[in-house]
């Protein structure tokens, strides 16, 4: 498959950002998701949540000194925006688990057609395990949006009939944005493609995917620009 048919990480982030409704409360995870905020229209007033107890943050403006007591979940320095609030971490997780976030946007190792997600461990013997807030985020957010490359580094598929890695959550993923496609997870039917990268055939997309793909009535062609 030609690399040219794949969307850039920034374009995937941009497509993700376009689908976020104005006034949403959103948690942003590691990986491609960290690129999403820069494509959010400030007029939409999307409010970002960080699990360490910050609601209403943005990237640190270049040239400003970072503050140790203002970081995000990726441990990057951030700054508060007007309207921000600080809470203790148990209340921050109540926001996540309690269904108050409109969406959590995170990376994954694998997503299954029933919405299962595996994102914290490859199950390898010498793997140092680490969960952080991922299990809480997927347990409670209204939408669980996975943003990732369509294929693993070695070329293995990541969109599966069933996950082979240890699960982060069961039946939780609602939408997937990759460098090849935009896919909704229908609890009854499985993966439903609603956008495909320009120049990529349905056969090529299926070949890169373990689970069978269905297609929405309207399938957008995703261009790089």
């Amino acid at each position: 498959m030609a690399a040219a048919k794949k969307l850039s990480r920034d374009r995937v982030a941009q497509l993700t950002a376009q689908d976020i409704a104005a006034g949403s409360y959103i948690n942003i995870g590691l990986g491609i998701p960290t690129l999403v905020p820069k494509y959010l229209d400030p007029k939409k007033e999307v409010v970002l949540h960080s699990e360490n107890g910050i609601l209403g943050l943005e990237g640190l403006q270049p040239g400003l000194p970072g503050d140790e007591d203002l970081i995000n979940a990726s441990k990057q320095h951030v700054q508060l925006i007007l309207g921000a609030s600080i809470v203790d971490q148990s209340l921050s997780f109540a926001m996540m688990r309690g269904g108050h976030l409109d969406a959590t946007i995170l990376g994954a190792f694998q997503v299954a057609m029933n919405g299962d997600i595996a994102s914290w461990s490859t199950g390898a013997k010498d793997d140092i395990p680490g969960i952080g807030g991922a299990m809480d985020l997927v347990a409670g957010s209204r939408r669980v949006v996975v943003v990732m490359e369509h294929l693993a580094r070695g070329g293995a598929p990541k969109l599966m009939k069933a996950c082979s890695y240890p699960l982060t959550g069961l039946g939780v993923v609602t939408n997937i944005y990759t460098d090849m496609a935009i896919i909704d997870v229908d609890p009854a039917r499985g993966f439903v493609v609603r956008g495909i990268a320009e120049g990529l055939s349905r056969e090529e997309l299926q070949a890169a995917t373990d689970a069978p793909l269905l297609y929405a009535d309207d399938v957008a062609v995703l261009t790089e620009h």
Partner: protein
Amino acid sequence: MINKIASSLSEAVAPITDGSSVMITGFGDSGLPRELIDALIEQGASDLTIISNNAGTERVGLARLLELGRVRKIVCSYPKSSGSVVFTELYRAGRIELELVPQGTLLERMRAAGAGLGPFFTPTGYGTTIADGKEQRVVDGKGYVLEQPLAADFALVKAYHADRWGNLTYRLAARGFGPVMCMAAKTTIAQVDDIVPLGSIAPEAVVTPGIFVSRVVRKDAQNGRS
């Protein structure tokens, strides 16, 4: 632009429908959202389930809502304050259902709902009639009762200051049930003394972040005024 400011009390309570469950802040006469309750009385919704610490006093506010026959059931910890004449009449006449819950359990059940937790074991009420029909369990020699999360369709909350995002502060002990009810209701409506510009409330001074709040309204915002 996020704008949760309702221009009148009646607009603020408009979405409450017959059969709704409604949490109401307050401890005795403290922390009561009096203006929102009056707006609800005027609004007309009936067959309500009210979740509040007490059951109203005299014949005003919550007691008036009861007296008008608009409340099917009340979930509270202490309905027998002096002056709770209306509740007493209705209860003795079998015309209102009462679910009596220890106050800490009431708070914790609402918090569990707001925090996305399931049932939890609490020592409160273990071995008493409050535990009748509930699962009980002894852990490390201490007895516990299994209690269920308690959510609601709406919460009417008395707060102090709000901004257009719904960030709230409270005044003194009127804080009370506010933070927990804001979390536990699908739609939270807060009345405030003042609406301040975004950014006026210092981030560390926000007690209830706007994510838990759907609408804010000045307590003196009459119909047609903003």
